[in-house]
């Protein structure tokens, strides 16, 4: 099963779940990611993010913190509690840069923490690194 999963992974482009309530951000960032040869799925709130994660099994989640319905921290908690989803790497992509926000997110185990505004090249390299790390496991 694991072998099959890995096989499938290597056979196609890595899939990224991009979660943000800001439509303009989803639009620009997904455009860039697609350009960088990733499959992109979007969600505009936490609830939707969990549904999409379960359905799409992304290789990486880019997760905003401040969102309606369910915030990013809650999404993280539920992901980590779900045996099927707990291993998906997550990069936080958020406007909240306070140390306590970083430490809350880190406590759930995250691949990286990127604050808005961000340099897209930097983001792409961090995304690449996270996906590779996951594949190497």
């Amino acid at each position: 099963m694991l072998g099959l999963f890995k096989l499938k992974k290597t056979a196609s482009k890595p899939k990224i779940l991009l979660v943000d309530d800001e439509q303009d951000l989803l639009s620009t960032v997904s455009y860039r990611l697609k350009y960088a040869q990733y499959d992109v799925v979007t969600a505009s709130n936490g609830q939707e993010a969990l549904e999409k994660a379960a359905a799409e099994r992304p290789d990486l989640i880019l997760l905003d913190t401040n969102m309606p319905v369910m915030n990013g921290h809650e999404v993280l908690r539920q992901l980590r509690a779900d045996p099927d989803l707990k291993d998906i790497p997550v990069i936080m992509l958020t406007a909240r840069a306070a140390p306590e926000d970083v430490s809350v997110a880190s406590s759930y185990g995250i691949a990286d923490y990127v604050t808005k505004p961000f340099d897209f090249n930097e983001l792409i390299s961090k995304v690449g690194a996270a996906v590779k790390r996951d594949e190497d496991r």
Partner: protein
Amino acid sequence: MTEQGSNPQAIKILIIEDDLIDRKSLQRLLAKSSLADAVVETADSLGQAKEALKKGGFDIVLSDLGLPDSHGMETIRALRSLVPELPLVVLSGLDDEATAIQALQQGVQDYLIKGRVDSQLLGRSIRYAMERKRAERQMRVAEQRYRTIFENSAVAIMLADEQQRLISWNRFTEQLLCMTPEDLHHRQISSLYPPEEWQRIRALNLRRLGMQHHLETKMVRKDGQLVDVDISLSVLKDAEDRVIGSIGVVHDITEQKKAKESLERSFSLLHATLESTADGIGAFDNSGQLTSFNQKFLQMWGLTELAQSGLTRARIIEVIKAQVVDPQVVDRVLASAYSQPEQARSGVLELQDGRVIEYHCQPQRLAGQVTGRVWSFRDITERRRTLEALQQSEDRFRQVVENAQEWVWEVDADGLYTYVSPIVQQILGYSPDELVGRLHYYDLLDPDDGATVRRKLQEVFARQDAFKGLESCNRCKDGTSVWLASSGSPLFDRQGRLIGYRGVSVDITERRRLHEILDRKQRNLEAIFDAAPVGMLLVDSQTIVRRANDAIRQLCGKDYPQIINYLPGQALGCIYASSIIQDGTHTCGVSEACKDCALIATIRQALEMGIPVHGIEIQPTIYVDGKDVQPSLSVSCEPVIIDGAKYAVLSLHDITARVKAEKEMMEAMELKSQFISTVSHELRTPLASMKEAVLIVLDGVAGPINDDQRHFLDIAKRNIDRLWRLINDVLDFQKLHSGRMQFNMQPNDMTKAVEEAYTTMLTYASKRQIHMSFSAQPNLPKGTFDSDRVIQVVTNLLSNAIKFTPEGGKVTLDLSKQGEEFVIKVSDTGLGIPKEALPRIFERFYRVQRPGREIKGTGLGLAIVKAIVTAHGGRIEVESEVNKGTTFTVWLPVSPRPAPAPMPAAGDTLIEGIVSGH
């Protein structure tokens, strides 16, 4: 020498007679008389008599006048001084009336003529003499008791005669009026009062109406000083209801106002001496012929003249009957006497002239035969009167003692009660019988408190001093405690030995309780006063500090002696006031700088106008611990009246720390404000360039662009605009917040302004597929307002309405005029606002929680709207129902008042900051 068997009840008689025959004859007479069982001793000289009397135990002395070692009156005087208490009957061979009277005046109880005495007369005379002596003694004791109370009384008691001259008074009278006995003797009582007070007293017509009066008045002291008194006046009358004088009982209420108990009622002083009179004696034979008589008999019945012309029994009876009140009594007495000739008779006759005559009659025998009757008469008028007067006086005294609140008592030298007035039962619950002869004063003392009092009283007894106002706690019969204030004076016997104390006690339990309550209250208040964290000064009408609490000491770094009795400035250590009183002049409030002193002004306002002043802030320069400091003080001053005098309570709260914190807070706020302003302005510049650059590409000025490019440039432009709006909101809010917002108040067309906002928002509405409509009342007048700001308000409200209304909903804008106000109404069919959120929606940064829908914004929009509306003198209200819609209504005055005050909504934030900062 005892010649009779000893019977303990028997009368013991000493017979002093040098003549053996007379002595034997007397003893024989005695043996035959009713006193046959009397114990008789004899003495044949005064010297021997003295020896016998020293042993004591005699009830009466029968003595001859002529003795070997003493003669006549000398004998009487010697015996009287030796045994004043013993009755003395003289048996003399000398039938001389002058001698008899003289002897009676010397205090002899009876004067008998040898040879004319039979056993019955002798027995009667002895019993009579003893009885009289006993009565006399009783009266003397009673009188002495009254006299002591009269003398020791803490009220002045004065007696005046019918000419209104003082004839008797007690020591307290002398103290009260500061007069000597010489000053008081026969003084006209009118001179003791100020003229107007005397008129008042006279107007009572006391003597005529004869009532007792109680009034408050004034009396004049020797030095002319007036003294407030409470006086009870009553008249003294004789048996015929004739006024014979008056009694005044005077209470010095200048001294005693604090003590509430009423003290004394009146006393009467008696002149109680029994007057001895010689008997009138007449002997009649069986035929009724007067056979023998004495001069006194004639004088007594006015028979002297008749005696010249012969006295018959019938004549004498006629004369006597003419004089007695009830002649039938005479008939009855005679009938009774003569019907039983063997019997002795005695009784009393009352005469029309007021005299009372006591008669005795017994048969005269000769050789065993009754040969006639001997009548003796004694004028007892005076005695009767005296007795009556004593009785009255004693009654009065008893009434006084029994009705007074004072408990009168006597104890012996060991402190055992020998007399207590009945009031004791009300005070201590013991009846007089339970105390007298049974309990000592110290048996009643409270076990806890008693030892000290007992020691004190033992010392007083040892010194034989009088004592006054001694307070002691006593245990009642039922176990409860009563506080008594007692005064007493020592009693001595003839030899000057202390035999006890006599005094009065007053129940002061209630008074002490009140004092204790007051004391406790006072202590509590003092504790509160001292512990109050606010500095408090009590200043008198001269603005001198009379009290200060601990917080004041802390504040000015001084101790009480440097605070009390100084002016406030001196006490606090104000540099304009010297702490030294120069030439008796205080130095606070005299310098030039003091003219504007808020502290002095505050105190004066409170003292002179009685107006309380609160929360004045002052910053005096005071000298504490060697350096000048400028504490910020919040001063309140409350006028108070204490014991009728004006005072002011000054409370000083050291708010230096608060003032400093406020200042720092203001500075920090200002800094923040400036920072926001600077940053916001600095953001605008790059933003303007960005927007311009994006527009150049977007508008195709820099060459053609494809659809993807347009899409992303649109995103860029939209977000630049959004950022622009955010910066503007923050700047606006900051300006309004700090009161720096400038309003361009001009006459403007309201319809035009509202319509402009409407037009601006049309595109946004249609994009969100909201149907928006606008209606305005026609011909609205021009108003005075800042057009741009009103457009901002309406735009903001419309923007909110569109934002929170789902697609297909409706937003309506309506403008009208009600009275002198424009009314702008923005209604939508949107989400509505939950009831609990309604009161908070105008707060800055407040955002309604909407589960499932987060709509972007700063939370400043409505706060800015409200600030602008308020600054225009208008108001804004909201009505809403969840899932039905919301209506905002804005009222703006057509002509607002000049210079609308930009409202800084900063106050509450500031307070929060201060409170949490502490």
